[in-house]
């Protein structure tokens, strides 16, 4: 009896702590990002907005996959009239492709700064600006102090920030709300049709503040994100596909 009371007390205290930290209560399903079970990894089971999300990629293919996944998230965040600032040192994103993730590329402003220091400065300035929905920066390395500065900026303005770390030398501890890693998975096609299907990813949450790490297989279709289990993937022989190609 006592033990149960203790458990209830602790869970209540935990909830209070989260509320004080500004984590919203799970209210209705309209505000979800459609990530399904992956959202349960976050505190209160809500995808946190108004924080910094960090994505890690170690090669160009993974960074392209991360871009696509973030594109899907941006589509949900920006809805109809949002605006996103995309900052990097060289601009390699193909705006036409972002359209297929439900984002109007015309509402993304691409900024390219030469030095990484300037990219971070630009991101901090952009995060302080209220009229923006999301800010995305592509850099190589983010350290704790820098992430702390960005975190302080978003706490005032509630803008969502995304950091894409390409090929970091070492993964340093940061104050970001979540660290993601997105890698490609072989696509599925309905009924064994030839050709490539909708993009599939292995989405890993390496670190979640006040939550627990998680891993899911997620696919993107024009209807939105969908989770699936790996068993569904039927690894087909190349020859089989090859015969069907003609």
């Amino acid at each position: 009896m006592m033990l149960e009371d203790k458990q209830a007390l602790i869970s209540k205290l935990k909830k209070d702590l989260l509320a004080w930290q500004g984590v919203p209560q799970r209210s209705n399903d309209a505000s979800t990002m459609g990530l399904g079970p992956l959202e349960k990894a976050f505190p209160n089971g809500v995808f946190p907005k108004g924080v910094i999300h960090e994505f890690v990629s170690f090669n160009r293919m993974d960074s392209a996959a991360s871009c696509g996944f973030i594109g899907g998230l941006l589509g949900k965040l920006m809805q109809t009239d949002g605006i996103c600032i995309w900052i990097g040192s060289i601009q390699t994103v193909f705006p036409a492709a972002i359209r297929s993730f439900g984002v109007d590329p015309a509402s993304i402003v691409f900024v390219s700064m030469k030095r990484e220091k300037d990219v971070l400065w630009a991101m901090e300035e952009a995060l302080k600006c209220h009229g923006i929905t999301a800010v995305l920066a592509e850099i190589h390395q983010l350290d704790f102090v820098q992430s702390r500065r960005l975190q302080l900026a978003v706490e005032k303005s509630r803008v969502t920030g995304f950091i894409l770390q390409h090929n970091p030398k070492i993964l340093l501890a940061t104050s970001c709300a979540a660290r993601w890693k997105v890698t490609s998975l072989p696509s599925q096609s309905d009924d064994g049709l030839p050709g490539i299907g909708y993009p599939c990813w292995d989405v890993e949450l390496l670190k979640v503040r006040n939550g627990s790490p998680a891993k899911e297989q997620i696919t993107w279709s024009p209807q939105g994100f969908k989770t699936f289990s790996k068993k569904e993937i039927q690894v087909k022989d190349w020859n089989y596909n090859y015969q069907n190609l003609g």
Partner: protein
Amino acid sequence: MKKRFASLWFPHLKTDWLTVCKPHLQNIPFVLSIAAQGRLIVSGSNLLAEQAGVHSGMAIADARAFIPSLKIINEQAGLAEKLLHSIAEWCIRYTPQVALDTPDGIILDISGCAHLWGGEAAYLTSIVSKFRQHGYDVRMGIADTIGAAWAVAHFGHEDIIINEQAQSETLLPLSPAALRLEDVQLKRLQSLGLRSIGSFSKMPRSVLRRRFGDSLLLRLDQAMGLEDEFVISIKPILPYEERLPCLEPICTANGIELALEDLLNKLCKRLSGEGKGLRAAELNCHRVDGKIETITIETNRATAQVKHILQLFVLKIPQIEPALGIELFTLGVSKVETADPVQENLWNNRIGLKNPTVTELLDRLKSRDANCDISRYVPSAHYWPERSMKIAAKMDEVAAVDWQTARPRPTRLLKIPERIIVTAPIPDYPPILFRYKGDTYTIRKADGPERIEREWWIDPGEHRDYYAVEDLQGRRFWLYRAGHYDGQADQWFIHGFFA
């Protein structure tokens, strides 16, 4: 408004400059020489040489006869113009309108400027003493007309200020040469015994016109103020410009910021009153030592918000080198546009590109790093991937066509397609495997080909057959073969990575 002009005459402009550059020339007579009509003639002489009887236009051989030890220096071409121009630029701190009066003078339009120095006498002393300190011999005259100011600067015995409407009394005893007449006219006046302006100014105009032509009457009228005369300023005055002269030279960033705020308050009040906004502006800081430091800003949208423009300038203040101090600030607007009326508080909370805080943010990014690119893309009616989008010219530009989404496009597009080595089974089939940057990728699934023709009227070349391929691990690539299959291995390229 009543016009007032000042004329500055440098009798020994070129030699004074040489003496400033080479102080050892100070105590020896020297002349500048140029070649003309097959001989060397004197083009400028210093005071010592002049006292000995050497004057401009004399042959060098004659000058040597006067002073055997005369030093002769070759004159560089265009020296006088260059000197005058830099002097005129320096004089901008006294008035915004400065014009050249070749070969050895400048004209200042000082209307409404002199009171800032405490009256015309103090103004004249300030300018003249500055030049004399630097070692230039200068004569100055101030009058209602350019002609009268020129006359007293050249023919008055000291620096003279002619009071308003009093030019005729001062000019009448002077020699006719003070009217800037041509040599022929001067000679004719001389031979007729007319040795002062007063001796012919009262003659009937028709008589003067018949004997000397229209130009004498024009010059006379210009000097007397009956005819208007205009000067062509070396720097065109911007329609929106503010000036702030400082009592004490300013050399701190804080001081510059205060000066800027003062200038911007005046400028923006005027701009917003006229429904205009600035797109580009420049701040010129005139230093005590004669140099001018300039910083410029640009904005993405016409604005007249003091706070925002000041923020943009403040980012650039560290670029200004004040040295011994700045004595004059001028703020000019180089690009003006009609501004959208902004209802500040009501609309500040809307999201998106219409929010003024977003454009202000982009302006700040741009002024931090002038090389940074800020671009927004709109679709363009081309199939060729590189041309399928274009940079929006304005922040609120709306696309005329829709984005093409029928075919898959990679999230990352390489700026320049990179060459790959492929193994393809038969012509027009997707590759089985390809090598890119030392790694081999085995292809499991493929879509294509999607043929995209090159627009021959834009650039010549071969078409591309695009394949979207997926390797064993699910990584996706956008490959293409340039032109038709002809058995050569080096016509395959990678152009992008899919999500």
